[in-house]
């Protein structure tokens, strides 16, 4: 039996199959928070960063819901390999989450106080790593339990990881203008391969 490998055909059905409600809710909440940050006045970079970082974590938690396939037991015997389906889901939801986060960033940059600037490259790195860790946690959970509760487990894992950085909040989430900004974000970049490798590992076919 030849393994069918035509990704283009798979995209429209997967778009219909993905549960877009959590990512949409996260997008609405992120954009709403961007509007509500220091309402009535311009936004300082410090407040904008808090909103952007929390939006990144929220979108990472929401993205996991797209990896859950309710018919996982049935589709396991389909000729399309699991890694292809899961990676297409990952890319679709990552694109949507990235768009939502970019919208939040644009909104906050437009509202930024005069004379200040947003340190965008570092913030993009942080959001990308948050999103990937959220996806990776859920991908591992979905391997064990192909139900929607796996997405909650993945989201909880991401939130626990985020909370475990709270005692070291200055070293992991630096304030704007921090002298250690570059060094800390190089460390963030060095973390980036870890969730990618986890995703590659978790998206393989489940052994029976």
């Amino acid at each position, binding site marked *: 039996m030849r393994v069918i490998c035509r990704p283009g055909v798979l995209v429209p059905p997967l778009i219909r199959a993905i549960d877009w409600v*959590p990512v949409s*809710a996260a997008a609405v909440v992120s954009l709403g*928070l961007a509007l509500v940050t220091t309402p009535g006045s311009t936004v300082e970079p410090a407040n904008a960063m808090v*909103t952007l970082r929390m939006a990144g974590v929220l979108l990472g938690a929401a993205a996991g819901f797209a990896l859950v396939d309710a018919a996982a037991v049935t589709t396991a015997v389909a000729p399309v390999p699991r890694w292809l389906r899961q990676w297409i889901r990952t890319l679709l939801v990552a694109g949507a989450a990235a768009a939502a986060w970019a919208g939040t960033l644009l909104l906050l940059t437009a509202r930024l106080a005069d004379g200040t600037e947003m340190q965008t490259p570092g913030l993009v790195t942080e959001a990308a790593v948050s999103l990937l860790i959220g996806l990776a946690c859920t991908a591992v959970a979905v391997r064990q339990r192909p139900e929607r509760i796996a997405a909650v487990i993945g*989201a909880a894992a991401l*939130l626990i990881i985020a*909370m475990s950085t709270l*005692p*070291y909040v200055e070293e992991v989430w630096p304030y704007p203008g921090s002298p250690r900004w570059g060094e800390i974000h190089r460390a963030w970049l060095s973390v980036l391969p870890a969730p990618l490798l986890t995703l590659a590992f978790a998206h393989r076919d489940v052994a029976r």
Partner: protein
Amino acid sequence: MSRPLFALVVAETRIALRSPLLWLLTLLTVTGRTVSTWHEMPNWSVEGVDTATSALVIGAGAMLAANLAILRDRRADALELTDPLPVRAQTRTLAVLVAYPLVAMAYAAVAMGMQIAGLLINSRPVGHFDVRELPAGVLPVALMAVLGAAVGRWIPHLFAAPVCILLFFWTLVQFPQSWLLPMVPYPKLAIDPVRPPAWHLLYAAALTLTVGTAALLRHGSRHPGLVLPGAGSAAAVAVALTLTLNSPAAAAAARTEDLRQSTRSVTAGADHCETLQTTRYCAFPSYAGWIPLWRDAVGPVVAAVPTAFRHRLPGITQRAGTGTFDPTVTSRNILTTMSWGRNGAERDSRRALAAQMAAAATGFPRGTQRGAGPSGCDARGRARTVVALWLIGQTEEPLPATSTRSSVRTDSGKPTERVVPASDLGAVDYGPAELAYARRLLAQSGARERIRANWTALTAPATTLDEALPLLNLNRSAASETPKGTPCE
């Protein structure tokens, strides 16, 4: 309590006690806080509030756990199974509302107790521990658990609780000093800020009851037994909030200036002064317990200085993190910060303070003064460097000098790297030869008398190391390096 409800409460409690969301987050909180505060001496006014605030992490876990317990009803075919049962949805909700907050509060109390125990190890805490902070830490955890259950009933979607958790923490971070929040964290850069009054605890408790009633109302708004408590707790919320916001404490908090915009002196408020063995120590009133620690660090250095010269030594004054420097204070005092080391780190604190006194005793520019300008100065080959390092050695072992690198924009606009020496004596550089001589002096008996006898000569800026060696009865062992920067004045 009816029998089914009691049985349900017991069952839910057992599940809650085993929930990894609670025990894992408790473990993380205790470990994280203990490790991050291990090397800092605690100030109870700050640590009491920070310990209570850290319980919010357990609250987040409780919110998610209670939410999942409520959503158990909606899994797969659970609705079909539970609908025909005599126990109604309201009873199941009430069981979760009783069990999860109690278990979460128990975990929070254990976490706070362990953190406080960790803070007491090898510490001399200062500040005032307000017992009100303990329930102030535990009540918001119950509120978050109840909120999770309410969200589960009204918005039965799996993602609703993570959104709720995030909104809760976002509000806490963006409006940190609003007393409308169920928990008010310790403000940064503040000394003895005004804390919310006891009405705030009542507000948090009444808010918990209101949210719990809202959760129960989802399935039985016609039940008269709910409307009255619901209305009562909502009224209690309004009353407690009004009392909190109109209390004398609120007026005092509004008058407290934001230290970040402060134009006041960094040492303003350091009014608790003591004179111990010819040195004057001034601390902020809540930090007075550390004066003996400063005396233990600086006392040996002062004792090594000849009596005739002790009157010229500066006093020690505590400074806040931000503010302006008052020249009349900084010229006659060494400024020490609002932190001190613990569990090994106190040696660095003692050495730093002793070094500042040693630098002052031997005539080096100290602290905020830069001697030869922003590039620091070089003290190689001078006798007073060795004397200063020997004075540091009376308290703690002196360490080699290092340097700090910073990026500076020159006049042409190009960023260049500037290397400034950094040592315990300030922006003063010295080499391994000076350190070696100081260590030999520390090991030598009779060094103290020789130094005392030749003090003026040894601490003169112009006296070189070679001239001083016969006075100190030392053989020439290593040649000191040529100075790399401008010599210190």
